[in-house]
């Protein structure tokens, strides 16, 4: 019996360790998927593997037709060439969180991608556009699973993802190895485009949190006039780095960080950690975390003595009606930083109209426009580099595709004028601070959050 307990304890400990390690990108991606995928595209283009049948519904007959003439292939590329047979679709993929508490963050981005495809009329160079995707969750494990599955489909031209930075830290190297390119409209953690860690296959149209954290700190210090603050992160790359940027900037401005706490993704009881923070009596708590835990923190602040009147501030991860649901009226009066919608280019109004028309509601979160721009970058690049053969087969060389995206300069996207640097940062970062004015999520968005800064 004792041995059974031993085993049980071990299982319990391991599962907690796994959960705890979730924050760090400790897992190194496996080699196999990469090798498999890099070899595949150029040599035997459309031999449908099991994975790709899901994406391409092409009959086998067509595939054999294409494989007959690889000898005459005029396009060479170090990373391989995607071949799209006549009548076949050009396949884009998403890797977004589409389940769990952060679902709306992912769905919001996917809608951005769909609208971008619509803007191209649903087709490119005479081929229909098709979107496939995987759930990358909001965790390193999810990122790994999604990236591995996507990397095994040689027909995928580019990927829009991931939603959460912790998924991207693991997913980006896998996608990179596979020769594909992934542009994220919502990964904001600074490390992803840090020259030391950046992989060539990864770019982003989302702002770098170096900007977001700094704007939040400036607003807190200069406008709200608070001089002491506490931060809470949840161990994810996104939250931890953002909390650190905030703390750095806040201290630089002359403020004081009195406590830097952390919780775990999946925690429910925040009262203890808040009581601990209350003993340092900060004037503001900054918690750039995600929906479920953010909801718990927000709704439990009021129950902790010593935190009466404390100001609350969070970031784009909580900018969604789900968070308003989770926190209810407790969210009223708190501040959220997010991309500045009013600084977006003129096309945004039109985008909103199309969004309303197609989905019957306002955007669910903040990164739809960034995802839209990410998709547009990929599709424009495909248009530039694709070579059409006499029989109508389209050849898309992968390295050339990447180069074309990196060469983006002063591109007028929805979110501003995009210019990609060599580390993959393409955004034109305009960050605003919004105040939550209502706890009724059915009024989302204008009657729930209002811009207060700048």
């Amino acid at each position, binding site marked *: 019996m*004792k041995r*059974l*307990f*031993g085993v*049980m*304890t071990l299982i*319990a*400990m391991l*599962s*907690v360790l796994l*959960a*705890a390690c979730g924050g760090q990108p400790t897992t190194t991606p496996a080699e196999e998927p990469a090798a498999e995928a890099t070899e595949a595209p150029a040599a035997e283009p459309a031999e449908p593997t099991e994975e790709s049948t899901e994406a391409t519904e092409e009959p086998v007959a067509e595939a054999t037709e294409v494989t007959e003439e690889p000898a005459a292939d005029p396009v060479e590329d170090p990373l391989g060439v995607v071949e799209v047979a006549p009548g076949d679709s050009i396949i884009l993929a998403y890797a977004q969180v589409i*389940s*769990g*508490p952060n*679902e*709306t963050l992912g769905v919001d981005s996917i809608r951005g991608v769909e609208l971008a495809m619509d803007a191209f009329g649903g087709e490119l160079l005479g081929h229909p556009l098709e979107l496939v995707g995987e759930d990358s969750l909001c965790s390193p494990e999810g990122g790994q699973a999604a990236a591995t599955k996507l990397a095994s489909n040689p027909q995928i031209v580019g990927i829009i993802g991931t939603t959460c930075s912790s998924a991207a830290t693991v997913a980006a190297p896998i996608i990179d190895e596979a020769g594909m390119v992934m542009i994220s409209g919502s990964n904001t953690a600074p490390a992803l485009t840090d020259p030391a860690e950046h992989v060539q296959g990864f770019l982003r149209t989302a702002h770098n949190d170096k900007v977001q954290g700094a704007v939040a700190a400036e607003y807190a210090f200069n406008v709200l006039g608070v001089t002491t603050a506490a931060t809470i*992160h949840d*161990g994810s790359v996104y939250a931890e780095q953002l909390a650190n940027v905030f703390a750095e900037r806040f201290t630089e401005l002359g403020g004081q960080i009195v406590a*830097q*706490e*952390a*919780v*775990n993704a*999946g*925690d*429910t*009881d925040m*009262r*203890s*950690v808040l*009581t*601990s923070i*209350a*003993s340092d009596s900060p004037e503001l708590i900054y918690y750039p975390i995600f*929906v*479920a835990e953010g*909801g*718990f923190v927000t*709704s439990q602040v009021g*129950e*902790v*003595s*010593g935190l009466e009147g404390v100001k609350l501030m969070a970031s784009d991860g909580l900018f969604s009606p*789900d968070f308003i*649901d*989770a926190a*209810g*009226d407790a969210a009223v009066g708190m501040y959220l930083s997010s991309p500045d919608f009013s600084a977006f280019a003129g096309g945004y109004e039109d985008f909103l109209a199309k969004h309303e028309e197609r989905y019957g509601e306002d955007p669910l979160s903040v990164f739809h426009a960034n995802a839209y721009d990410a998709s547009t970058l990929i599709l424009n690049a495909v248009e530039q580099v694709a070579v059409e053969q006499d029989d109508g087969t389209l050849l898309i060389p992968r390295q050339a595709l990447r180069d074309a995206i990196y060469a983006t300069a002063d591109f007028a996207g929805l979110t501003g004028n995009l210019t990609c640097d060599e580390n993959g940062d393409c955004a034109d970062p305009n960050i605003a601070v919004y105040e939550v004015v209502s706890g009724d999520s059915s009024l989302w968005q204008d009657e729930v959050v209002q811009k207060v800064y700048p």
Partner: protein
Amino acid sequence: MRRLGLRIDFSQLIVWIIGLLLLALVVIGTISTLQTGKYSAQQWRDFVVFGIAQGSIYALIALGYTMVYGVLGLINFAHGEVFMSGAFTGFFLANALAENGMIDSNPILSLIAVILLSAAVSTGVALALERIAYRRLRRAPRLVALITAIGASFFLQYTFRGLYGSGVKVYPTVEILQGSVFGIQKTMIVVFIGAISMLILLYLFIQNTKMGKAIRAVSEDVETAALMGVDVNRTISATFAVGGVMAGVAGVLYAIIFKQVNFFMGFIPGIKAFTAAVLGGIGNIPGAAMGGLVLGIFESVGPSLFLEGLGIPAAYQLKDVIAFLMLVLILIFRPTGILGERLATKRV
């Protein structure tokens, strides 16, 4: 354990040393935190109150683990999902009641209705689990049943995800439960009272009813109980049902303090409650209740009390470490748990 003198087992010795080192760390941390005087007496009280509220929920779930272990020797890892199924289903009734205003005009009645529904669903799930997944495997090796339990847990999680969606649902706020009495949140008081009354009811059921007697008999010796005319299948079903009721009530109490429910909510409380059951001595009903409370309080107080004193930053991220560290210490120093394995049945 009792081999003293020359026959000290070397590996036992190492384990004891590790255990003692951990204990020493806890003591040093505690002393240095208390010396800094960072927290006021009221804050310590708050930590304990939060811990008790959380612990009462662990205790109710732990009862399900411990009773099933008592009669079957099986660790029902799907019990966390039994808890989730009730809480998640209760949401829909609570939400409907909030929309038609019942919850504000008749809060107590509504609360009872939600608890009844939640308990009914949890009980149904627990019974189905026993009938479909475990009964056939009763004579199979332990490991088979254990793996089945883990499989059933995933099955239930994803069934409920399919039924109710993968998003987070939020229970409505009950007006009369807002605010506090003597500086303690009303919700905490309700949860604590709810949990204690369930424990008392359970105790009365086990000690004073015929079925309770049958459960005790089966957990002592299945075959002899069968020879004495106890219907074993029925008794085991009853055990699962009682565990389900407890889990269902725990689900609503959980929703009262935490509001949010989703399909994955049963996993962590399930693991914690299992820890609580082992802490108290698995198979032992008062032990499970005590284990839950102790675990809740330690989780809430521990990071501030001894981790901060050791100079560990962001101590609350290590909350789970405390829970499982306690489990390790208990298994080293008192492998049968605080109150001892199956104490209740020995007394009969």
